[in-house]
């Protein structure tokens, strides 16, 4: 059964139930596989958050590491500087990320197409430098966690990864459910209309600037939640780790690989890219750092060349041609 058939038959909630059951049946616990699964869910959630504005709304942003970073710093600041639990920092960070997204995007949205993308590049650079010299958040050294008590209160687990797994599963479920709901509602139609023709959308009563700002704010809020998780998971945060073009590219590449502007694309992209990255990093690291990025780059180039629709495009193509052959078969049967 191909993945499309699987999804269609069992649906999205069943997938969530299966994912929730993995630790119970012992697949998630300690060890490398658990780590990889957590990163798959994290990257899928990040890509799906990006997909709201970048895929559905067609505004390709290379600035999402800024929002991710603000979320990460929110949690880390609460733990390392304020010495509380991460939770207030998570909320404040996510809200700040949404606010920054609105302030920064508003002038950028006046730019069209590639110019928008280029402007978002510059913003990553600005925030990276800003956090590098900003002592209040640790400057270039960043913020390091001290040893905390395990559990949900601190959102920290030192050996057993099940807590993190459930944590990211909740974020993943939240992001995907939101996008699923949006894509079928007025906002989803409006975003796609803006992508396909902003003036046309406006002629149909769509306030495109307002719509894009709202989508960007939500996208940034969700990206910041992922960032907060990332800081908690790594016990530290510094500017190059979260606010970098590398990190921004992850949002973009996972989505493009899976299928930009589709619901399942971000998950499929993460399923393919994350294990590849983690295993190549683990096994090819003696070839020097960056091998994983070379492989990424190659896949993306090949993808753009042969199937710009990503993995979803391939699945679509496959199911279309199957439909066509069965139709053709139907015709011959009828005529014979």
């Amino acid at each position: 059964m191909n993945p499309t058939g699987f999804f269609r038959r069992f649906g999205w909630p069943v997938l969530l139930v299966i994912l929730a059951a993995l630790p119970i049946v012992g697949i998630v616990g300690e060890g490398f596989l658990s780590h990889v699964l957590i990163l798959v869910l994290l990257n899928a959630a990040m890509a799906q958050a990006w997909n709201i504005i970048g895929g559905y709304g067609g505004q390709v942003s290379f600035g999402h590491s800024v929002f991710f970073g603000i979320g990460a710093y929110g949690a880390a600041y609460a733990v390392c500087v304020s010495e509380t639990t991460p939770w207030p920092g998570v909320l404040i960070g996510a809200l700040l990320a949404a606010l920054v997204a609105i302030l920064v995007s508003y002038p950028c949205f006046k730019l069209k197409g590639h110019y928008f993308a280029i402007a978002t590049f510059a913003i990553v650079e600005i925030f990276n430098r800003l956090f590098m010299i900003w002592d209040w958040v640790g400057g270039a050294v960043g913020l390091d966690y001290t040893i905390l008590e395990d559990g949900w209160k601190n959102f920290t687990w030192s050996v057993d990864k099940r807590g993190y797994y459930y944590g990211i599963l909740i974020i993943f479920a939240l992001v995907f459910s939101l996008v699923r709901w949006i894509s079928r509602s007025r906002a989803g139609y409006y975003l796609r209309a803006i992508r396909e023709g902003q003036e046309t959308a406006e002629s149909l009563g769509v306030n495109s600037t307002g719509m894009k700002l709202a989508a960007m704010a939500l996208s940034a809020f969700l990206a910041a939640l992922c960032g907060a998780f990332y800081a908690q998971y790594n016990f530290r945060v510094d500017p190059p780790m979260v606010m970098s073009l590398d990190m921004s590219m992850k949002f973009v590449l996972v989505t493009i690989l899976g299928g930009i502007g589709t619901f399942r694309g971000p998950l499929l992209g993460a399923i393919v890219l994350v294990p590849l990255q983690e295993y190549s990093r683990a096994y090819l690291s003696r070839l020097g750092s960056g091998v994983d990025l070379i492989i990424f780059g190659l896949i993306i180039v090949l993808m753009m060349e042969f199937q710009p629709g990503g993995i979803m495009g391939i699945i679509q193509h496959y199911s279309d041609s199957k439909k066509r052959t069965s139709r053709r078969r139907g015709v011959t049967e009828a005529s014979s």
Partner: protein
Amino acid sequence: MSAILSVRNVSMQFGALMANKDVSFDVEPGTVVGLIGPNGAGKTTLFNCVAGFYKPSAGSILFHGEDITGMPSYRVARKGLARTFQVVRPLKEMTVLENIMVGAYMSHGDTKRALAFAEECMRTCFLEEWRDKPSGDMTIGNKKRLEIARALATGPKMLLLDEAVAGLTSTEVKEMVDVIKRLKATGLTILMVEHIMEAIMPIADKIVVLAHGEKIAEGIPGDVVRNNEVITAYLGKKYAEGMAKGHGSRS
């Protein structure tokens, strides 16, 4: 009778070029008004001013007595003034029905009712068989009817059609004229741009003629085609003089 749309002394300047010069006319509710003129006369420009795509350099536009000059286009649309584009602009990656849904969400907040209304507009414009096809794949005739279906789905009080007929085959023209007649029968007010006179004469209650950005004539279709200035604008001075002489010698 008070006008639903008043164009008052509208001028639009692009650099040194005056695309519209002091144009004024009214559209009465429930009528079909044709805006005609040779290529480059400034019809589309005037349309863009009315629909909020351009802010006129001078003059004002009143809709239901309210000044909408320079209002952003999405707000003009929400006031009940819907437009189509001369160069068709399907939302390519979306299906025909999805295109119409975007419009329908303006008139119907909830998805179920928007869908029902979108389907109705789709049928009005003879697009049923394309329902789930990507809109980018259709012929030009279908795309032009999609433009109308989409605008119609916003539930407008008045429709602005920019060359809905131009560039179509004769069957497509007939289908399109049928659609416009249907709309007229529902009492919708329509302002339509057309530079093919034959297409507009049978439908319009009134014709406004533009040439070189200026209004050169306004009246019922039968009078306008006999207007010398109009004939000159369309066919050149010599032809008009010849026509006048021909008429003179016969009478």
